[in-house]
């Protein structure tokens, strides 16, 4: 069992070769039909309604073998060879039932996916369970393969009472993201048939903007005028700055030198003549960057950095403002705002917009 050599390596989705011969209209119609037949749900149990079974490539080879053996038996007028070919044909029939049995009753439940940012490999956790009779070892679910359309798969050699799996998805752009339907498939028992199903676990995931390492640049806020932004940058310690000293536990986190921390020089405290810090704002307009995505990435990094130091900060993306606060919930709120920031209000960035919108409605065009 080889494990992924480089976890950061980007997986390039491989569309099926026949995928481009299928007209888009048919794909859409197929998607609608699937939505009706197997509606999206957080918990899906596979039944005869949702299981498809067709011969695999090897199954077709098996058919050819049966045909050849029948011809062989006929030409040599050998009833035993004919019998062998018919026995192998009956095995096909038996395998259909076992293929069905192997998926039927399998229940998939979606779990909350871990936080991911853009251009990062994603993993969606799913828990599988079965209502099987444990006294019979043949009745558990064998060799279950899980994957999103055109994505890397994960194979479970056996699904017992309760099994957890994470299904990979290749990196996507920031924003709201629905990975679409999970293909649950199995070639058990002889690999002659592939039984599969498309399960939509109604996963709605928000991909945060990719954090871009930068320095914290905070905008100060006038004490008297809270409703407006102060565009003048706070030059930390220009007047009162005395120097840096090693951080001692218990000291206010507001005085930690985040720039130096970010550079990996450890926790240092800025010594101010007047050590009273002011609440600070992160503002899109004041972030330096070549384009909007870069700016958002820098903001995302700063949000993480400030949250980690439990500093109070607010976020302003043009009109969208999150009041000053600290903590994990605040960080998530800020990251979501950044992730969902609609770019069309401003100059359209060329590279990622189309990609993002595509991934949002991908549920419909899976085959």
């Amino acid at each position, binding site marked *: 069992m080889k494990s992924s050599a480089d976890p950061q390596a980007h997986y390039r989705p491989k569309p099926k070769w026949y995928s481009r011969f299928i007209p888009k209209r048919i794909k859409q119609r197929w998607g609608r039909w699937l939505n009706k037949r197997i509606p999206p749900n957080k918990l899906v149990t596979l039944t005869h309604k949702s299981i498809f079974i067709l011969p695999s490539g090897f199954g077709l080879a098996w058919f050819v073998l049966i045909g050849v053996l029948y011809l062989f038996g006929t030409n040599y007028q050998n009833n035993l060879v004919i019998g062998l070919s018919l026995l192998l044909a009956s095995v096909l029939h038996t395998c259909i039932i076992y293929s069905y049995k192997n998926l039927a009753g399998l229940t998939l439940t979606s779990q909350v996916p871990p936080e991911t940012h853009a251009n990062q490999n994603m993993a969606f956790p799913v828990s599988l369970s079965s209502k099987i009779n444990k006294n019979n070892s043949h009745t558990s679910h064998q060799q279950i393969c899980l994957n999103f359309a055109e994505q*890397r798969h994960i194979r479970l050699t056996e699904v017992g009472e309760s099994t957890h799996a994470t299904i990979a998805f290749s990196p996507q752009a920031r924003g709201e993201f629905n990975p679409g339907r999970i*293909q649950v498939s199995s070639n058990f028992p002889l690999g002659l048939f592939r039984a599969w199903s498309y399960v939509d676990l109604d996963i709605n995931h928000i991909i945060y903007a990719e954090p871009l390492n930068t320095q914290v640049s905070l905008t100060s806020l006038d004490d008297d005028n809270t409703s407006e932004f102060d565009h003048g940058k706070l030059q930390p310690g220009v007047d009162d700055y005395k120097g840096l000293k090693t951080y001692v536990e218990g000291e206010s986190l507001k005085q930690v030198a985040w720039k130096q921390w970010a550079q990996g020089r450890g926790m240092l405290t800025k010594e101010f003549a007047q050590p009273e810090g002011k609440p600070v704002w992160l503002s899109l307009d004041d972030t330096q960057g070549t384009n909007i995505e870069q700016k958002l990435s820098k903001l995302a990094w700063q949000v993480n950095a400030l949250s980690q130091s439990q500093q109070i900060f607010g976020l302003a993306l043009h009109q969208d403002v999150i009041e000053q606060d600290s903590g994990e919930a605040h960080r998530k709120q800020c990251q979501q705002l950044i992730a969902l920031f609609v770019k069309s209000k401003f100059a359209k960035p060329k590279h990622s917009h189309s990609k993002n919108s595509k991934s949002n409605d991908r549920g419909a065009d899976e085959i």
Partner: protein
Amino acid sequence: MRFKKSAPQTTSSNDSFNDDFNENISRNTLFWLLLTNVLVLSPLYQDATLWSIGICAICFVWRVGIYLGKVAAPPKLLVTSLAIGAAATLALVAKEIGMLNALVNLLLLGYALKYIEMRQIRDVKVVVLVGYFLIAFALLERQGMLDAVHLLFVCVINACVLISVYQHSSKKVNLSFGFKVFLQSLPLALLLFVVFPRLPPLWLAPSMKNATTGISDEISLGDISKLTRSPSLAFRVGFDNEVNNTTKQQLIANEQLYWRALVMESYDGQTWKQANLRKNEQRSAYGNRSQRHDSQVVDKSSALNYQVITEPTYQKWLFGLDQSFSETEQVVELADLRLFSLRNIDQRFSYRVTSFPNSSLEEQLPPLTKRINLSLPKDTNPKAHALAQQFATDYPIPRDRIAAMMRYFNQQSFYYTLSPPAIGSNQVDDFLFENQAGFCSHYASALVFMARSSGIPARMVAGYQGGEYNPKAGYYSVYQYMAHAWTEVWLEGLGWVRFDPTAMIAPDRILDGFDAMFTGEDSYLQDSPFTSLRVKEIPWLNDIRLQLASLDFYWSVWVLGFDEERQLQVLSELLGEVNTSKIIILMIISFSIIALVIAYYAGVFNLSPKQDPIIKRYNLICNKLANKGYQRETMPPQAFATFIHQAVHQEQPQLAADFDKMTEHFIALQYQPLSDKQIEQHQTLFKRYFRKVKMGL
């Protein structure tokens, strides 16, 4: 109820999605492959050339090495060059060893080489498919009942290779699942076997090249005595009108069982051969399947219908009584009144025959046939020739003359022996006047010679005489040692008439069969110490032998010889009048019944686990208590028992006590680790208190 919680194993692959072809082969699969390799190849050892066996053995040993982790997989270049070398060598020797043997060897080598260079699951699948093909090859030559069971077992093991790819369990689980799948497939296979149409051969496929067995198309005088040393089965015959015979008596006398196989019309002084005319007829039989017409047959009332199941002879001639006809595909009726197969009998072959023993054979003799059957080598056997002339003058009527010749054998001091003294170049003279000792072919040869030289058309017929009747199944077994030669003489108005001079010297041989004349030890048992025919003298062992033989006979008739006619017979017994729609309905119904049964055993209908009977009983009591107003809700059993105890022990102290006890055993069964014996004890007590509580409520 104790469950083992197995830690789920997961694998994810990087570079492939949604297939398993790039995954490494598991150790379990490797084990099954090792086993399959031996099982698939071993039945074919007879057909493999020595060096194919060698290469297979090397590949196997290498694989064992890989399995044990001692050696690495061979380099691809080595395997490729070996494969090309082997294929080229096979192509060169294909002519020599026969096309089919070459094909088998090619497959064997391909199997072995693919086997050794296997890296991916895809390769494993190819090996499995080729394995089934090799099993089919093995079935061509091995058709006994035990062989079939053995090869069915090999089929299951071959499938276990695939199962181990998809089922990560122990080998035992793999094996039992494999058997389950195959046994559940058998009923449908059986049904398909009965219903599926049987087609005639679509083209002439090459056959196995093997040493021929049985009588050959040339008889030197000593040949048949070699066959009398052989205890192996030649063919078996089941007569239609005897199968249902309840008396289990042999109905056809031994002296009537002259199984004609070959007609020898050409004599060069040393050996008897088929005439070129007959050989040409045989050769052109495939293109020109002219069947004989039974218009010649006058007396149709005495028709005998029977089925012959012949063992492989690697020859083409078949066996029939007197003038025989056959409707079986691939069997043609030749002008010399014999049956002939279009292809080599390289496997057990069954055909149906109709014979007319009372009809005359060929009343009008074509001039060419007449000439052939009168010709003799010039200037040989002068004494025999003179004797024949003497007969001709004494008996001008051919019929009388032949009868006199027959009597001659009786009157003179001839004796019958399987090991006659050597004879010189004038075979007939030496036999008739010097040795006066010989066996069937000597006598037949002498009679034909004398008949021909006195101007009567005559010929030698080779085949088998007699048959061992099996009263268990009502059929005749003809063994190689029953090989025989006799004469046919053509008489005006009668056609070819059979004369067997052996009957004059050794009438027991003809009337009661070979065994009455000779003991087995002197003939067919001499060279074969381990044949089952040895037990003939011991009644109860002979009984078992006949029982087993009849089982094998039924197998041959109903499985190996299951042809269109039998198919129709079975189907009409099942369905009455057979038509397509009835068959389709039969198929649909049986398909669904079989599918339902398999689905039931596979556990499709059993998705919700059966509730534990203990829990079921406990819940039943809880429901009854709830009806009385004592709700359990989320109380644990212990707390509920206390609650009930307090509630009812005033009015029904017995019930309260019983329920306490019942709860105690319930908790023990559910939550305590117990030995099997303890479980049993608790269960008994739990059930006892359950009944009491139920009564109390």
